[in-house]
């Protein structure tokens, strides 16, 4: 869709046309949801972020004055929501264990991580290793986590991340550098 058509959609949505708003959302929402899913690692939180972002867009549209691209404005809102988001289901990412009987020593119980791999549909945590990485990423400060996931999970360039997060490229590099150091330290037993 061309910029002119998007501008028209925005104007119609501003005037209260809910169909125009829905079309505008559908043009951009997959990317927002994908970013949210990569940032949080779970569907419930991703859905919460999606709602929060587009409700803010809906409320703020009346004051949008085309000083920036709509997508830039949307990215800023998304970044703010992501940074302020607290995972409500982080405990669900802790490996779940159950007791299983030892094959070689009957009567002896061992703790075993229930396998939660092979997830063709939702593409959730596929191995215990990636689950540990997800937990380590979640423990990073929000800014570092956001810069790191935008770079290494969403594949954005440092320049793009700097624009989205409204920081200098140097700051973004520092976030990514610190995040990588922390992750290496936390995960060196596993890697």
């Amino acid at each position, binding site marked *: 869709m061309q910029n002119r058509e998007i501008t028209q959609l925005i104007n119609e949505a501003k005037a*209260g046309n*809910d169909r125009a*708003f*829905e079309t505008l*959302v*559908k043009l951009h*929402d*997959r990317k927002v*949801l*994908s970013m949210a*899913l*990569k940032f949080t*690692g*779970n*569907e*419930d939180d*991703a*859905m919460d972020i*999606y*709602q929060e972002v*587009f*409700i803010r867009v*809906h409320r703020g549209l009346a004051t949008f004055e085309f000083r920036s691209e709509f997508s830039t404005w949307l990215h800023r809102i998304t970044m703010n929501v992501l940074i302020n988001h607290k995972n409500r289901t982080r405990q*669900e990412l802790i490996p*779940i264990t159950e007791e299983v009987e030892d094959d070689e020593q009957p009567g002896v119980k061992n703790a075993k991580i*229930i396998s*939660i791999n*092979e*997830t*063709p*549909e*939702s*593409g*959730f*945590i*596929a*191995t215990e*290793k*990636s689950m540990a*990485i*997800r937990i380590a*990423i979640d423990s990073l400060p929000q800014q570092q986590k956001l810069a790191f996931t935008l*770079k*290494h*999970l969403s*594949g954005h*360039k*440092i320049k793009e991340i700097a624009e989205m997060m409204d920081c200098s490229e140097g700051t973004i*590099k520092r976030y*990514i*550098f610190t995040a*990588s*150091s922390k*992750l*290496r330290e936390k*995960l*060196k037993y*596993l*890697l």
Partner: protein
Amino acid sequence: MKNSIEHTKYIELIDLYYAKEIAGEDEAELMSHIKSCSDCYDIFALNKELLNGLEVLKNEEPSESLLIASREKLFNYTAKSLDAKNEPQSFGLIIKLLKNNNFRIAATLVIGLGLGYYFFAPNSTEKMVIQQNKELATKIQTQGNHNPEVNSSEKTAPAVTKVVDPNFFKAVTPRTLIDEAISALVNENPGVRLRGIEAIKELTISYKVPEVKTALIKSLASDPLPSVKMESIKLLAKYTFDNEIKLALINSMVNEENSAVRILAVDVLLKYYKTNNNIDSDIDKAFMDIRNNEESNYLKIKVTNFMKGKRS
């Protein structure tokens, strides 16, 4: 590992290398350094392992059902907030008009005539019922038009045919509407089926009609449209929970293809299970099945955590 300034510089370059944001001299300098520095080589190798581990997370993309559910929730919210926003505006207009003397005189005349008509005109209650039914029909007509699963040609198809026939309203009773809604649920047009669901939702009396429950159970088991199945679950949750509903939900939780429908079925079953002191062998068995065979990790974790909580 020595944390000297020199190492810090190369560690930063390693990060930039894996971020694919390094080229030329810097890259050559890094490569030459890691050949001679075992500490930096270890970090280089460790970063590679870390990024390999990230590959799985990198491929996580939202499922279509998550996207549809997110949109549905958002658009319901924005539609409601739009209605709420419009209300005070109309009140504001009325207040403005009431301040106008000419309007007040005209309004008094109209109200007087209206009251006269109300008290002396025959069958005013019947007309009110007809009007309410017409409004309901309009609402039913538009149901499904926002649903992305319904094709545009299906959106314009007539709803429950008799409901839009003006003569129909003369002899209409809630029961006739319920019968129409039940027959709409088996219509081959998905737009009509969604309208049937909307009609059942509107007619609160339908919760006392056993045929509606049977029709909803049938829709849950066999309708190809996930939205119809999800609405059926929501409506079934309003009935007194019985064995028939329980088995239908268990069947949906175990055999349904769409994960959003399975999740909703689990939610309703968990609610029932908790109110029933966590005792139900059929649900226990089905939850074990979910733990062992479910594809969606969200669902698997949800059920596993619940079972864990129950044990402790």
